[in-house]
């Protein structure tokens, strides 16, 4: 039983790694651009389809296609900001407009994929997808472990980027005060596009790594995006490293809760914690500014 509990925690952490990659992108987008990106799940879905197609057609391993996915999604994110979100700036009801735009984008992506790919469930089978490291009779799934470490590395890289580089500092300036940043000569829109692009790119990595152990269909993003929102609010909107930790917390809670109580109660538990943290720590668990 104790082993099973430990295993539940391990599984939870590894799942958390996947949720982290998805949520960190959302956190960056919300933190910098201050847009609630309802199409975020569809960025994940696009990356999964790309991974599926290049694997099925040309046998490209997802660990290679993650570069393709992150690059493509960076482009998609950049363009979304440039052509869609930017147009909503300084218009009346800007915030509401942005919500409508991202929701519409989400619907367009899902239904577009329905038209191209049909609603069939697709999966890829990697010979080593179920490969696991067994340490002390605990199973660590290889693929999920890779996602976990990648999420860790990416989280640190984003932190370095935002703290230590000029571009990162510019991005933080834009986050703190859009007008002031513009006044001192920072290209606000370019930084927004970059942030959106990087955020989408991160999700692209998540999608590539998720594909071998999940299934692909047009609505797959919707299964994950709600969790991602809970995670970024829990973390404190905009905190990327916070999103990483919060994702792990959610992953472990989900796993332990499901094992000890039952999956339905676990969903309740996650939202209860969400509500409690909103009551007591409204700015999120990690109030570090990024």
């Amino acid at each position, binding site marked *: *039983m104790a082993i099973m509990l430990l295993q539940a925690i391990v599984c*939870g952490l590894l799942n958390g790694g996947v949720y982290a990659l998805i949520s960190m992108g959302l956190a960056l987008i919300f933190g910098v651009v201050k847009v609630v990106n309802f199409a975020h799940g569809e960025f994940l879905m696009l990356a999964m389809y790309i991974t599926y197609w290049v694997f099925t057609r040309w046998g490209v391993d997802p660990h290679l296609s993650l570069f393709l996915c992150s690059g493509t999604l960076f482009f998609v994110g950049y363009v979304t900001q440039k052509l869609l979100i930017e147009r909503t700036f300084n218009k009346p009801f800007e915030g509401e407009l942005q919500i409508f735009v991202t929701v519409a984008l989400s619907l367009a992506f899902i239904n577009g994929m329905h038209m191209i790919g049909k609603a069939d*469930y*697709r999966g890829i*089978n990697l010979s080593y997808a179920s490969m*696991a490291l067994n340490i002390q009779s605990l*199973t660590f799934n290889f693929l999920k472990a890779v996602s976990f470490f990648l999420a860790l590395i990416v989280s640190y890289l984003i932190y370095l980027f935002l703290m230590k580089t000029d571009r990162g500092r510019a991005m933080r300036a834009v986050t703190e005060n859009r007008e002031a940043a513009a006044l001192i000569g920072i290209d606000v829109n370019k930084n927004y596009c970059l942030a959106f692009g990087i955020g989408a790119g991160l999700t692209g990595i998540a999608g590539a790594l998720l594909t071998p152990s*999940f299934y692909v269909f047009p609505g797959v993003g919707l299964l994950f995006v709600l969790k991602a929102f809970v995670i970024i609010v829990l973390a404190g909107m905009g905190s990327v490293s916070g999103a990483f930790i919060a994702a792990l917390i959610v992953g472990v809670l989900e796993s332990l809760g499901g094992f000890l109580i039952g*999956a339905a109660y676990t969903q309740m538990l996650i939202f209860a914690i969400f509500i409690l943290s909103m009551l007591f720590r409204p700015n999120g668990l990690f109030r570090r500014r990024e």
Partner: protein
Amino acid sequence: MKDNISVSKKLTISVIVVILLIGLPIGGLTKEVKDVKIGLLLPMTGPMSSLGELNKRGFDLAVEKINREGGIKSLGGAKIGFVLADSQSDPKVAASETEKLIAISKVPIITGSYAGSLCITASAIAERHKIPYWEVSAITDVLTERGFKYFFRTIVNTTGYCGTAIDFLNALGYKKIATMAEDTIMGVTANKVFQTRAKEHGMEVLQVVTFPHSPTTFNSEILKLKLAKPQALAVAQFTNDAILFVKQMKELGLNVDLIAGTYGGPSDPQYAKALGELADYTCGVTVYNWDMQTKGSKEFVNNYLEKYQQEKPGLHPSYCYMGMLALAEVLERAGSLDADKIVEAALKTDIPETLTGYGIKFDPKTHHNIRATYASVVQWQKGELVTVWPERFASKKVISPMPKWKDR
């Protein structure tokens, strides 16, 4: 007195009015019904869409056969067509689409619906409007326990369908099992049936697992099952969840001797397409498979292969095909699209055998098909789906126990 309209104009208008008054009703009195448009409510989008698509194929094939053979002769050779409504795998949409079918498309009958959760809301609406609802796919017990007058169901119910999974495991000698189902009306009923039938056979259910609708991970459920160590597993899942579950079974090393899957999963060709080799040895409960030697089976298989040229037909098109053929027979017997006449004709249905193996005869009170008491079991063997149980329908012997994951 000054007339604003001239006398000749008044005369012309009166003549036209009289002609219309006589002509229109006479036109309506003819029995020449051009075609009959039946409401078809299926989940064409959403998580159940792959099965909605398979269901539709069964309906289309049946209607093509009916129309090819002369349509509904008692309605003047009327051809059957459908008004297709997409329930989007959502019970609320199923209900609103049914309202539309009745109020706007004014269909005389509605058929469908794939899932119990979709049928229960839609058929309640139809009953309120006194429109016959011909359910061919949803097996949820409660559907025929509502005392509805206009509702009929041709397929086996949950007790018969899920019970078969347990009968099958019992016949193979497995006495210690676990069951797993999602926590929706479909799953909750399935789990109940699994447990009741297991008790009847004197089997021990070591663990009853439930999971939420469309989960992103099964690791908690799998860990629970690893702890319980059952010999075999009876599962009720939709195909997408079944795909994820099997993948994670391998990831986390959960080994059982046999899995009997109901609803989606092993009976759905999509499942094997997505899983490849991983699907082998898993079993599914079905009402029909291409290799069953039953009435009308050969013709059905040939028509299906000719039209769809992909895979051999299995469970999901078959019950729609069979149900639609039976509905056409009812319309033929009724000779009218009037709801009460249809109900009367339906109650006279007495078909000894269909391609599922069982026939059709409706209980006069519940309107459930009392001849549909059992189902069959199929297994994926080397990428081919074959019938393995009961013996009289089996084309191959069941392979059990399944080899362990690390040995595959």
